[in-house]
């Protein structure tokens, strides 16, 4: 995996000249971590955080990342990666977890204010959900997902499964994306809530007016996806994805 290769290169920096290592990081990290949307100064800050976390203000770094995630849809879907790398780097360098703590507490604040965020801007709300789910996906602790995030993630998904949200294609799209990515893991952590969520989705699909046809299709696909143990059968794959969309 590209991530692993990049990290090993940092560790064996003695063998490769520092300049080369940096150059390689420069080229790959932009693409890998999707930080193209940040301004140059911030990009520099992030790159330094990845290599030498002790030398930067980690609280600032975590705020920068969260702020951007709420604005940038592309970044919100992949921000977990850069966060994980910084967490690892900090743990290795100084056995501390300042960055993770700051990140999580800031995330918690945003989570608490999610209803207001949703009222203010659907896009920001959707970005928030993507970001939280992405963090859940990448930031593993001792190779296990963070227990503390299980219920908050479910809360977000439940909100997206409410009638008013299902009318919104943007929100349905977000919902199914998250379920595709982390549904299986979430289900392992708490089966009961997943069952409840899917009851809502089934009801939404069958009973609700105001669903767009795309919305309906997305829901049907996710229902089938889970029914097939988080994978699509070949025929289902053909049914949903073989036609080219306009």
């Amino acid at each position, binding site marked *: 995996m590209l991530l692993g290769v990049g990290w090993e290169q940092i560790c064996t920096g003695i063998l490769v000249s520092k300049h080369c290592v940096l150059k390689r990081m420069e080229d790959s990290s932009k693409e890998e971590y999707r930080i193209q949307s940040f301004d140059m100064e911030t990009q520099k800050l992030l790159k330094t955080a990845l290599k030498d976390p002790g030398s930067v203000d980690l609280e600032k770094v975590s705020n920068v990342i969260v702020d951007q995630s709420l604005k940038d849809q592309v970044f919100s879907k992949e921000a977990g990666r850069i966060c994980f790398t910084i967490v690892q780097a900090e743990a290795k360098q100084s056995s501390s*977890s300042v960055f993770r703590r700051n990140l999580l*507490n800031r*995330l918690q604040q945003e989570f608490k204010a999610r209803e207001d965020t949703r009222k203010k801007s659907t896009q920001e709300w959707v970005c928030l959900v993507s970001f939280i789910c992405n963090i859940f996906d990448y930031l593993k*602790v001792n190779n296990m997902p963070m227990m*503390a*995030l299980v219920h908050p993630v479910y809360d977000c998904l439940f909100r997206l499964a409410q009638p008013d949200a299902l009318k919104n294609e943007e929100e349905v799209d977000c919902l199914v994306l998250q379920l595709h990515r982390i549904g299986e893991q979430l289900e392992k952590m708490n089966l*009961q809530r997943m069952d409840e969520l899917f009851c809502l989705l089934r009801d939404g699909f069958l009973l609700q007016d105001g669903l767009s046809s795309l919305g309906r299709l997305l829901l049907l696909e996710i229902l089938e996806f889970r029914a097939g143990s988080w994978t699509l059968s070949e025929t289902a794959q053909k049914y949903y994805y073989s036609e080219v969309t306009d």
Partner: protein
Amino acid sequence: MSYTHKYRRDDDCKVDENRNKGSLRWSHCRKRGADGSVRGPQREAESTQSSSKREHRPQRPESFTTPESEGPVSRIRNWGDEVEADEMRTSVRRDMQRYRRRILAGEFVQRERKTSSGSSDSRDSRDSPAPGDIETDETVLMRRQKQINYGKNTLAYDRYIKEVPKHLRKPGIHPRTPNKFKKYSRRSWDQQIKLWKVKLHAWDPPAEEGSDLQAVEDFDFDMECSVDPEIELQYPKSTSASSSLPQDSCTGTPSKMMKLDELEIA
């Protein structure tokens, strides 16, 4: 006769079991919930209801309702703390599995107790306890792990492990991390940690000329009584503490310290 006990707090209701049946069962218990509303026999306590869905730790409800709060208040303070506690818990569990496997694999030397000297410690850390006889209480283990972490997150420890690989360690001279899985009293454990950390100070980065490491080699840990004045300077802490030995040493120890430990073990 059996009845399902819905309330966590109302243990005092059990007394009324015989006299009251049906809707009058709870009449002698708290009639009102914390929010003031009258409780019926069917309704579950608000806190258990709101938390029952969310509970994944059956022993403690995740939220509770107090008269001052408006509604259920989460027990979780913040995600940062929660994840750190989580991390420690999973680390401790993983350590425990590893330790259990090691015991069962017989990796530890069984020390023979033929020479039953009065001062020999029955809890020698090189003895392997029976697999069932280890500390399993998570609260205790986590507290101990935290104390160990404080000791390990020091420059001294870093320097120590870089300098002395495990297989080159000499008992008595080289500090050894107390084994959190062995059964010890609270005081005994705290004392072991203290002694261990004091010993680690020998590897503190040199603040002045005259390396601390030099002092370690010269300093005779078997010394019970008088303290070398030169050492006195480098060990500003109480001299008796620095010259005492950990429990796994076979040589003599200051009798005062030893008695204290023996008392605790007894």
